[in-house]
C-alpha cells in the first residue's frame, strides 16, 4: 500500500541538483526585463509623470503609465467572496490619479536588462501632492480621517455581523464577565523566492506566461478578460515555485502589466520582483484588533462571546474580498461550545499595502485571541487553563456540530473529532501534572519556565470541486493531470501515491502534470489546504475508474468475474489469493488492440469543508534581565483523519510551526505615522532562523477520518501555524504568574517582556 507510507518525494531530484526551473531561471533569446516604479508616498495625488528623459535612455524599450493602458481597462476583481460593495476600492494595474500605499505601482519601464531598466527608472520624474495618510484601522474610522476612495465615501468598506443566540442578553446574567483588547500585527508569507513572470507574445498575438502559481486556471481566465483576448490565445505555465503560503499566485497588477508589455513589444518580457519590492508589493496579512467580552461561571464554563474586530485591509481590496475577516469571525469560537455568540467585523481601508491570505488566514488571528482569552478566564478564576478548555469543548457526540456562523458561503459545520484527546496527549507529553513542581524548583534556581497550551480547529477541503485526469500509457506509466498546483508542499508525490494505490504500480511510475493551461483542462488550484482533500479525491476517483476499466478487460480475457480480480504489483492478480493473473505488459496491448482508451477524468465535488484539529503546547524559559525567550520543548498533536504521506505531513506541521513562530515573536510589517514601511528588508523583518526554531515533536492522529471524502483526509497545510502564538503567549504568562503581565498583542518581542517585568511588581 502506497497511501500511508512515508515515501521519498518525486520532486526532490531536480531541486537538489540545481535542475529545478524557477521562473527566474528561464531565458529566451531577445528577452528584456521590466522594473515597476512604485509610489514612495502612502497617500498622494499624482500631479504629473514625465518619462521623456527616461525614454531616450540607452536600452529602454517601453515605458507605461496609466494613460498608456486601455481606457476601458477594468480593475482587478475579487476571486473569493466577491461583493459589489467592495468594488469601489479595487486596484487598477497602474495608479491613475492617486496612490494609496507606499509601493502602489505607478509606471513600468522595460529595458534590455534590469540594470538598464533600474538606471532609467531614476530618470522618470513624478510630481506628487502628498495627502495626509491613515495607518491605523481604528483611526481610519474616525470622522476626520482622510477618505481613501472618495467614490466609496467611507473607509469602512464592509461590516460582517455574525450571531448565534443573544450574547448581549446572556452577558447580563453571567457570574463573571471579562473584557479584553487583543491585537495581531501585520506580517505575511514572505516566500524565499520572490514573485516573477515571464511573458512571450508571438506574431499571432498568442501569449505564453510562465511563473503562474496557486490558481493558474482562474488567473488564465482573468488575464484573458482583462487583456481582452480569447482564452485559447493565452497559455499559463507553472514553473517550480519557491514557496507559496497564500500570497503568491494571486492576480496582482504585474500579472496584467507584464503580459501587456510583452504584447506591445512582441518580445519576451521578464519581471523578477526584488526583495525590497516584495515587502511593499505582495499581499500582507493578519493585522487585526479585537475587543472581546466573555461571560462565564465560576467553573470556567463560558456561555457568551462577543467580539468587535477591526480588520486592516490596506489601500485596496485585493483578490480575497472578505475571505480573511469572514474566516476570522466564523472560526473564532474554535473547538468550544459557546451558547451565545455575537461578532462584528469592520473591514477598514488604511494607507498600507493591501492584504490577502497567509497560511491559516483568520485562524492564526482568532486562535490567538480565543486561546489567550481561555487562559485569562482560567487566571481570573485561578483554575487550571487546561481544565477550562475541557469544560468548554464540543464533545464527540455533538458532531456534526455547527457554531451558527458562516464563511465562504458555508455554515461552519464541524464533521467529526474528539478535541479533548489531543489536549490530553499534549498534557501527558509535556508533563503538565508534574509541571508546577518543576517550575518552582526552577524558580529556586532563578530560572523562569512556563508551559502553555492552545487548542485549535482548522478547516480544509475548500470546494466546490477539483479535477483529475488519469491515463495509463502503453508502457504502463501513468500520467495524472490535476487542477492543483505545486507550491513546495509535495502534491506531485501525494497524487502519485494515490494513483499508485489504486492501480497497483510503483508511485515512481506516475507522472503528475499540473499548472499548464494547455495540458490540464480545468482546475481550482492549491489553497486553503484543499489539495489532498479535493484534488486527491478527484485523482482517487479518476484512477479508480481506470482500475475498473482495466479489471473489466482483464476479466474478459481471463473469463472470470471482474470482482475476483485486483490490481497489484504491476499487474492483475486474483483478489483473494494475490496470485498473479495477468501482468500489465500483456493486458495493455490487448486494450490497445481493442481500441480502448485508458484515460479517465473525474471532477470531485464537495459541498462542505472538513475540519482537522489539534493542540499545541510550548515550554519556554525567559531571561528576566533581557526578556529573551527560549523554547525548551514544543509539541503538536494533530488529527487529520488520514495521512497519505506521514513524512510530508510532519514536514508541513514543523514548517508551519516555524512560520507561526515568526508571527508570534519576530515578524512585523511595521509602518510609521506617515505610512512608510519601516521593516521592509530582511535586516529589519526577522524571519526565524535555525537558531530560533526549536526541535518540534509531532503526533499525527488518524482517529476521525473525514466522512466527506473517500480518502478520509482532512488536510495538513495550516495546523502547524495557527496555534503557535497563543501556546507561547500562554507559556510566557504561566512563567511569570505573579507578575500579571498583560500579554495581549503580537509579536511577543523580548523588549516588551523585559519592560513589562521592570514595570510590573509581583502581585504577592
Amino acid at each position, binding site marked *: 500500500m502506497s497511501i500511508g507510507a512515508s515515501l521519498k518525494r518525486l520532486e526532490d531530484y531536480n531541486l537538489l541538483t*540545481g535542475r529545478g526551473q524557477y521562473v527566474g531561471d528561464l531565458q529566451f533569446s531577445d528577452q528584456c526585463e521590466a522594473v515597476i516604479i512604485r509610489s514612495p508616498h502612502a497617500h498622494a495625488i499624482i500631479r504629473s509623470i514625465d518619462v521623456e528623459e527616461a525614454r531616450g*535612455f540607452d536600452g529602454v524599450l517601453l515605458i507605461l503609465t496609466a494613460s498608456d493602458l486601455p481606457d476601458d481597462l477594468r480593475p482587478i476583481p475579487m476571486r473569493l467572496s466577491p461583493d459589489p460593495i467592495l468594488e469601489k476600492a479595487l486596484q487598477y494595474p497602474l495608479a491613475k490619479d492617486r496612490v494609496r500605499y507606499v509601493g502602489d505601482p505607478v509606471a513600468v519601464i522595460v529595458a534590455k536588462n534590469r540594470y538598464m531598466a533600474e*538606471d532609467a527608472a531614476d530618470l522618470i520624474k513624478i510630481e506628487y501632492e502628498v495627502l495626509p495618510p491613515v495607518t491605523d484601522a481604528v483611526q481610519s474610522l474616525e470622522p476626520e480621517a482622510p477618505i481613501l476612495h472618495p467614490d466609496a465615501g467611507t473607509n469602512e468598506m464592509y461590516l460582517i455581523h455574525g450571531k448565534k443566540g443573544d450574547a448581549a442578553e446572556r452577558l447580563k446574567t453571567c457570574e463573571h464577565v471579562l473584557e479584553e483588547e487583543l491585537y495581531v500585527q501585520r506580517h505575511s508569507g514572505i516566500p524565499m523566492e520572490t514573485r516573477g513572470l515571464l511573458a512571450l507574445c508571438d506574431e499571432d498575438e498568442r501569449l505564453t506566461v510562465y511563473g503562474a502559481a496557486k490558481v493558474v486556471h482562474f488567473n488564465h481566465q482573468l488575464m484573458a478578460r482583462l487583456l481582452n483576448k480569447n482564452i485559447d490565445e493565452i497559455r499559463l505555465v507553472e514553473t517550480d515555485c519557491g514557496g507559496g503560503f497564500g500570497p503568491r499566485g494571486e492576480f496582482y497588477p504585474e500579472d496584467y502589466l507584464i503580459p501587456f508589455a510583452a504584447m506591445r513589444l512582441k518580445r519576451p518580457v521578464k519581471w523578477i520582483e526584488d526583495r525590497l519590492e516584495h515587502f511593499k508589493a505582495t499581499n500582507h496579512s493578519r493585522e487585526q484588533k479585537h475587543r472581546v467580552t466573555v461571560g462565564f461561571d465560576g467553573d470556567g464554563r463560558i456561555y457568551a462571546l462577543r467580539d468587535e474586530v477591526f480588520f486592516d485591509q490596506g489601500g485596496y481590496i485585493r483578490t480575497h474580498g472578505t475571505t480573511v475577516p469572514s474566516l476570522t469571525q466564523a472560526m473564532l469560537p474554535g473547538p468550544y461550545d459557546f451558547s451565545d455568540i455575537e461578532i462584528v467585523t469592520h473591514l477598514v481601508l488604511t494607507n498600507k499595502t493591501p492584504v490577502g491570505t497567509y497560511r491559516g488566514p483568520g485562524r492564526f488571528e482568532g486562535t490567538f485571541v480565543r486561546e489567550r482569552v481561555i487562559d485569562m478566564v482560567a487566571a481570573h478564576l485561578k483554575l487550571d487553563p487546561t481544565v477550562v478548555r475541557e469544560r468548554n469543548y464540543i464533545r464527540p457526540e455533538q458532531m456534526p456540530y455547527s457554531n451558527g456562523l458562516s464563511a465562504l458561503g458555508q455554515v461552519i459545520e464541524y464533521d467529526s473529532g474528539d478535541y479533548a484527546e489531543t489536549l490530553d496527549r499534549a498534557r501527558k507529553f509535556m508533563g503538565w501534572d508534574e509541571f508546577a513542581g518543576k517550575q518552582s524548583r526552577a524558580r529556586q534556581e532563578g530560572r523562569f519556565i512556563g508551559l502553555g497550551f492552545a487548542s485549535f480547529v482548522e478547516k480544509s477541503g475548500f470546494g466546490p470541486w477539483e479535477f483529475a485526469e488519469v491515463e495509463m500509457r502503453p508502457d504502463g506509466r501513468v500520467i495524472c493531470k490535476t487542477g492543483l498546483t505545486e507550491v513546495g508542499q509535495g502534491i506531485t508525490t501525494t497524487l502519485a501515491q494515490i494513483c499508485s494505490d489504486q492501480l497497483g504500480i510503483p508511485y515512481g511510475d506516475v507522472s503528475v502534470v499540473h499548472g499548464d493551461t494547455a495540458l490540464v483542462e480545468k482546475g481550482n488550484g492549491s489553497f486553503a489546504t484543499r489539495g489532498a482533500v479535493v484534488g486527491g479525491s478527484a485523482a482517487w476517483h479518476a484512477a479508480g475508474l481506470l482500475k475498473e476499466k482495466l479489471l473489466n478487460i482483464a476479466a474478459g480475457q481471463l473469463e472470470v468475474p471482474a470482482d475476483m480480480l485486483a490490481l497489484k504489483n504491476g499487474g492483475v492478480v486474483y483478489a483473494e489469493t494475490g496470485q498473479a493473473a495477468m501482468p500489465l505488459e500483456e493486458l495493455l496491448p490487448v486494450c490497445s488492440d481493442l481500441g480502448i482508451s485508458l484515460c479517465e477524468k473525474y471532477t470531485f465535488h464537495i459541498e462542505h469543508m472538513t475540519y482537522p484539529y489539534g493542540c499545541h503546547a510550548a515550554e519556554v524559559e525567559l531571561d528576566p534581565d533581557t526578556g529573551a525567550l527560549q523554547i525548551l520543548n514544543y509539541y503538536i498533536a494533530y488529527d487529520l483523519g488520514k495521512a497519505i504521506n506521514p513524512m510530508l505531513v510532519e514536514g508541513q506541521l514543523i514548517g508551519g510551526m516555524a512560520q507561526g513562530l515568526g508571527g508570534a515573536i519576530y515578524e512585523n510589517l511595521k509602518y510609521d505615522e506617515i505610512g512608510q514601511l519601516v521593516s521592509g528588508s530582511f535586516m529589519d523583518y526577522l524571519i526565524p532562523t535555525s537558531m530560533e526554531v526549536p526541535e*518540534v515533536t509531532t503526533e499525527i492522529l488518524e482517529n476521525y477520518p473525514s466522512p466527506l471524502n473517500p480518502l478520509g483526509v482532512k488536510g495538513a497545510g495550516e495546523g502547524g501555524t495557527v496555534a503557535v502564538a497563543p501556546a507561547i503567549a500562554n507559556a510566557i504568562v504561566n512563567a511569570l504568574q505573579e507578575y500579571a503581565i498583560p500579554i495581549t498583542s503580537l509579536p511577543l518581542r523580548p523588549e516588551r517582556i523585559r519592560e513589562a517585568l521592570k514595570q510590573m511588581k509581583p502581585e504577592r
Partner: protein
Amino acid sequence: MTEKTAESNRLKTITLKVNHKEYTVDVEPRMLLSDVLRDILRLTGTHVGCEHGVCGACTITMDGRPVRSCLVFGVQADQADIVTVEGLESEDGELHPLQKGFWEKHGLQCGFCTPGMLMTACHLLEHNPDPSREEIREAISGNLCRCTGYQGIVDAVEYAAKEMRERAE
C-alpha cells in the same frame, strides 16, 4: 548621465573556474557574481532570494569558503575557484551524501533555499565531520528556509555526516 552609462558599460574580462571548468567572460564591473553565474554561465541552481546578503539562497563556495554570490561583483571573482550546487554530484552522476540526506530526511519542500543550504552544509562537513545538532543549526543559521522549520535539514546534515564518516573509514 550618458557618460556614466558608457562607463558602467565598459566590460572587463575575467577568468574563473566554476565546478572545475574554466570560463572567460566579459562582464560589466557592476554585475553581481550571482548574475554572472545565472545569466551568463547559465548555472541557475544558485538562487537569488534577497540581494542584500541575508537569506543565503545564493551561497556558493569561492576558494573553499562559503560566500554570498549576491554580495560579490563578478569582477571580484576573477581567478577564483567556485563550486555551485551543480558541482556537488560526482562525475558519474552519483549524488553527494548531503543531497542524498536532504532527499531521505525531507530536508526540502519548495527547494529554493536548498542549493545555498547544501553549499553551506558542505563547508561545515569538510571542517567538522561529526557535528552536533547544535553545531549544524549554528552553521546553517545564515541561510533562511521558509518551508521546513529546519528540523529536516538538521536531520539531513546529520545523515550525510554519518555517511561521509563511514565512507572515509
